């Protein structure tokens, strides 16, 4: 019984997530957005902040 609860609920949640992703192009785009945002943050930090720190020191 416990195994069934775990398997079914995990599959349902994953399924809902996948279905939403499949049928909503906007959702797909927005889900992917943080990875580009992250690249920007890292890029900014690496190129500007750290270089600035190095100059100061």
């Amino acid at each position, binding site marked *: 019984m416990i195994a069934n609860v775990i398997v079914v609920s995990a599959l349902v949640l*994953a399924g809902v997530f996948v279905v939403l992703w499949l049928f909503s192009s906007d959702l797909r785009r927005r889900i992917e957005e943080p990875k580009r945002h992250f690249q920007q*943050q890292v890029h900014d930090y690496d190129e500007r902040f750290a270089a600035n*720190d190095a100059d100061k020191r």
Partner: protein
Amino acid sequence: MSNVASSPGVETDARVESLVDTQLVYAHSIAALVTVLVSVIFGIIISLQFFLPDVAGSWLSMAWGRLRYSHTQGIMIGWLGNAFLAFLYHAVPVLAGRQVTSARLGRWLFGLWNFIVVIPGWLLVLAGISQPIEWAEFPPVVDYFVIAALVLAAIQFLPPFFKNGLEELYVSSWYIIGSLVFTLLAYPMGNIVPELVPGAESAAFTGLWIHDAVGLFVTPLALSILYFVIPATTGRPVFSHFLSMLGFWGLFFLYPLNGTHHYVFSVIPMSAQMGAIAASALLGIIVVIVVTNLLLSARGGGWLKGDTGLRFAIMATIFYLVVSVQGALQAQMTLNRVIHFSDWVIGHSHLAMLGFATFAGIGGIVHAWQRIPWARYNAVALNWAFCLLTAGVTIMFIDLTLAGLVQSARWLDGSPWMESVLQARPYWLVRTLSAVPITAGFLLVFYGLVTGERGAGRAAIDAARKTSQAAPAATPSRMPGQEPAFILRMSYRVSATAAIVFFCLSVFLLGVLPGRALDRQISDMSPDNVYGLSASELRGRTIYAREGCAYCHTQQIRYTDADMARFGAPTLAWEGQFDTPHMWGTRRVGPDLSRTTGTRPVDWHFAHLFAPRDVVPWSVMPSYAGFFDGAADKPTQDARDLVAYLESLGRARELAWPDGDQRASELYPNDRWAQMSLNASALNNHPGRTRTTGDYPALADRAAPGGADLWQNYCAGCHGNAGRGDGPAAAWLLPKPADLGEHAYTDDRLAEVLWHGITGTAMPAWRDLPAGQLAALAATVRSFMVAEPVMAVTVEQLATGESVYNANCVQCHGEEGDGRGFAAPELAIAPTDFTRVRPYVGQSVAALVNGVEGTPMAPWTDRLVEEEILAVTHYLRAFFGEQP
């Protein structure tokens, strides 16, 4: 907290300069490397003790169990905890675009983590103050400070994330948030609850914690590093943020539900076990998704030639794949039946903590360190560190996996226990040798971070960039005027709620619910008045816990054919109803001790604790000479208490058996697993346990080769190399081991003693030896017999002897000399059967003059004169039915 750089834009250089608190990155990195080196030293000493078990001498602070506790807590809290904190001080400001909450709080957290938790934790454990719960060995007083530190960490790192919307959070941020929240939930559950509930219920919660420690603390933070370092270094975004989020939610839903797979085939309700097994299989699928996504993200990164941090991160990803697929497989009953308790599992845990998590931790440290402008950086040393650590961890993992398979094979084929120990020794040697490159690797990581040019990390970043494929230009995160999708925000909220629900579900389904079932079972099956532990036994239990005995000796007989054949009836829930916390154990270097009661005499235990190899020549058990005043027959109160506790193990079930089991069997007629235990053919199947009666097989016609080696392995410790009863342990045993040179035995008697042992003495049974080996040992015994000079015996002497015998000896030794006198059943040690044992004259006279210490045989010099003693000696020797 100040918003110094609102995402993704950049404000003035002066304000962003202090975005990352590089001093705390530095401090935690150094603390991490110092603690890992100390922990590795603990580990090396532990592994050396498999060859030099007496290396700690009577210095209990260096005893195996205490070092083992310190090793694992040092790796998890000292090393990985500091490594993750170092990374968080770099990553959180970068991810959130804001400083962490407070620099001052950071210094308090650093002090708390290292000077109130790690160092005192180690000192207390080494001083003997600990708790015997895996991955929770620091004592409860330290646990409260760990919880306080986790609260501070949550305050320090979580608020920066919540300034932005959920839909903007990158997967690393999710892992950091998830880990900090769930560790805070899981740590008290795993470290405190087992101290409050007994036996199997305690084990159910321990199982949850063992997996939560890895799954909710270590893995999420390690994955946050991988998702950070790989795209940050390659300059390319992760392959799919959708897959990364699918993996994130999958891991947080399923990891907490895995815990009970540490106790498959135990008395914990099978429904909970099956739930954990199903969750483990699902988790394996999720991990494949995560790893695929990470490796696709690393494509084009030129990782072997490129950045050192990236190299560690990708190797961590590969280790993660291997260890997770292995974990999913070994939770399945078919494989679990074989490899559980063996070194296979030790290899698995080393690959998880020393492979996956450690490589991720180093990757995170190196990545952050390269970005400390004033820090030194030695790329050559770090590259060598990578090679050495990869080689060392891989060798250790493969070696321990093979060792586990060898041990399992011996356990399954019913070989004597020592066979598994002997055959594991070469693998243990390789494991110790694998510590050489690992230690050198860690030293080089340290060296690489404190030598080299200041600011050289920056140059390394630039150099690595050249080796990777051109990174696509970063794109703005959000188009002006676009609003976050409501549905995405909601789905994250639902998932976050669901993850909390799943954690609570795991505690309920795998902790509380099985606990209730176990409570019912205990109530139904337990005898009305269970024999509890005396004060001495309770003190002994504390010592057993303190010295980590449960880390080599389990106290749970599993519901498998192999365990039942070797140890006896599987453990029922009520047997541990007073064990708080439980000490079931998850590894067997020595045999299970659930049924110790009545298996060995007390003097054997003392000798075994004082000098294990004097009793069992190839034993790897550490000596506990510190519990004695210089000799095994001079035990301190600690030794007496410990042996009293050992003797209590299994006693309650033995007292209740078989009537109690019969009654319980009628209450649970349809419970297949309960019936397995309740209808077991024997409660205690220990092959060394003596029996006073029963059939025994005759000696085989053909003796196996290698009788002399068998003798050395099993018998010489007590009987001596030449069988004269003068082995190194002989001085401490009462009665003394027999002098086999001055006794003649019939084959039938040798067969009986080898099969049944001699109750009341240290002479165990050897039922686990094959028939050919028993015959070989019997032949070896006969070979020890020295030639006895022929003595003239007169008719008058025999008549006198008969008269003396009938007046004084017949009550115990019987009219026929067969040891079946009417008083014999009342004696703790059966009287000698002279029809099958003939002592030499000197032996017999000595027994009559001095008595036999440790047996009911008293001196007879106050009743018999010298002539009568000699006469009765000749008379009783005449009972012997066979010429030697």
